[in-house]
């Protein structure tokens, strides 16, 4: 819940308010099954958090707030585009991580930079278990140094990289010259129509998708309540409301949540060249 409040404040969005105090006041502990819901040989419940029935409206509001923030902030097309550009940049740096003689010239980064020490450390190639653990610790130490500032602060250096992909992406991110986005919602909300257009774009731009000049993003999907569950450490992410003395999953009690539970997927393409985006969007030259 805390991140919703912080992100709402920091992004300045008016959406996503939650009744934090009321929710906290009505937190209870109850036994909740952790099996997949269609398990057939009995259930293994665990003790976890749930909410008192009085908090049902606040719980609905919380889920709706999370849904809205995902729609408007986390899965916004510009947010996702920048994330994919950074991911492409990091993949390019990673490709040189294991080449100590050339990594500096190709990435523009010093050998001691945590990106280089992280990508250059390969526990998976360790000859034995002891060495693997040692390398895992080293990789973890580097990883923990990789916060937003470490990446943003190294863009200056990466602009000087010998690898043209790294240099170009670093410059684009610094100057906010983002890849051009085509959201399949451009063709309407009918999923079948969107997916037919996706097939066309996949076919026409297959080569450029392979080289990442065009990036396909079909990983952004939301539902108001994804039944996460499963492993023990995730049990707290289920949302159960105490009903007639025992916890019931919120989808069972809330018509609002039930209505919005179907997953919605956003499929987008990010184009390095604006002309490619325009050609993909209007295959017959129509405006």
């Amino acid at each position, binding site marked *: 819940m805390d991140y919703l409040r912080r992100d709402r404040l920091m992004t300045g969005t008016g959406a996503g308010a939650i009744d934090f105090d009321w929710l906290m006041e009505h937190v209870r502990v109850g036994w*909740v*099954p*952790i*099996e*997949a*819901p*269609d*398990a*057939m*040989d009995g*259930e*293994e419940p*665990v003790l976890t958090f749930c909410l008192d029935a009085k908090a049902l409206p606040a719980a609905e509001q919380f889920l709706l707030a999370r849904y809205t923030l995902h729609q408007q902030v986390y899965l916004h097309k510009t947010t996702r585009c920048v994330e994919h550009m950074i991911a492409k940049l990091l993949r390019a740096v990673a490709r040189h991580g294991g080449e100590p003689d050339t990594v500096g010239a190709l990435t523009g980064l010093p050998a001691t930079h945590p990106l280089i020490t992280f990508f250059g450390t390969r526990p*998976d190639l360790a000859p034995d*278990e002891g060495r693997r653990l040692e390398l895992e610790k080293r990789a973890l130490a580097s990883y923990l140094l990789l916060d937003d500032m470490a990446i943003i602060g190294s863009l200056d250096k990466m602009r000087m990289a010998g690898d043209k992909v790294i240099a170009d992406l670093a410059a684009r991110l610094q100057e906010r010259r983002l890849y051009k986005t085509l959201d399949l919602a451009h063709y309407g909300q009918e*999923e*079948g129509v*969107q*997916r037919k257009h996706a*097939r066309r774009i996949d076919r026409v731009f297959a080569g450029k998708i392979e080289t990442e000049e065009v990036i396909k993003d*079909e*990983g952004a*999907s939301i539902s108001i309540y994804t*039944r*996460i*569950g*499963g*492993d*023990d*450490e*995730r049990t707290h992410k*289920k949302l*159960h409301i105490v009903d007639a003395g*025992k*916890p*019931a*999953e919120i*989808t*069972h*009690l809330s018509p609002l949540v039930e209505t919005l*539970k179907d*997953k919605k*997927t956003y499929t987008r393409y990010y184009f390095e060249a604006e002309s490619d985006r325009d050609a993909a969007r209007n295959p017959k030259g129509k405006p």
Partner: protein
Amino acid sequence: MTIEREDIVTAVIAAGGGRLTSRVRLQKSVYLLDQIGLGSGFDYAYHHYGPYSRDLDNAIADAKAFDLLEEGYGRRQSDGASYSIFAAKGEMKPEVFARLSPKRASETMRLFVETNVTILELAATIDWLWRFEKRKDWRSEVKKRKSVKAREDRLAKAVDLLTGLGLPPPSSAAA
């Protein structure tokens, strides 16, 4: 004929009799089919219930959008938790099982449809832990991740299932 990802998910469900309950079962079934040679081309990562493929999730969405698959919902009696019920509407393309053979695919999927989903989840997780995470102590690791779900009798059934598929796990270092 081109095999699209929605053809794979539709064929897998059709091979099991045309109806399959829960996304967890579908995910674990396709993962295990891949280990015995389906060759779906889907990528997997460890997720909440074990190996999970976003590619497969997208294939389900495609199959629904192209009207090859229908998704309904059922509910668990104890707490009302809902789960998906898939029904294949499209025809099974035998080419999907060119590597595995349609007969073996059908026998295996019918077995998966009848297997307790927790056993299926444990079997896929055990296979993932030793095969991809290189966990020599997969038994203690699966107990750590699955806690009360990983009862000894269930682990034994999961190992039996894997052995029957020709995917026996190596002896666990902690066993």
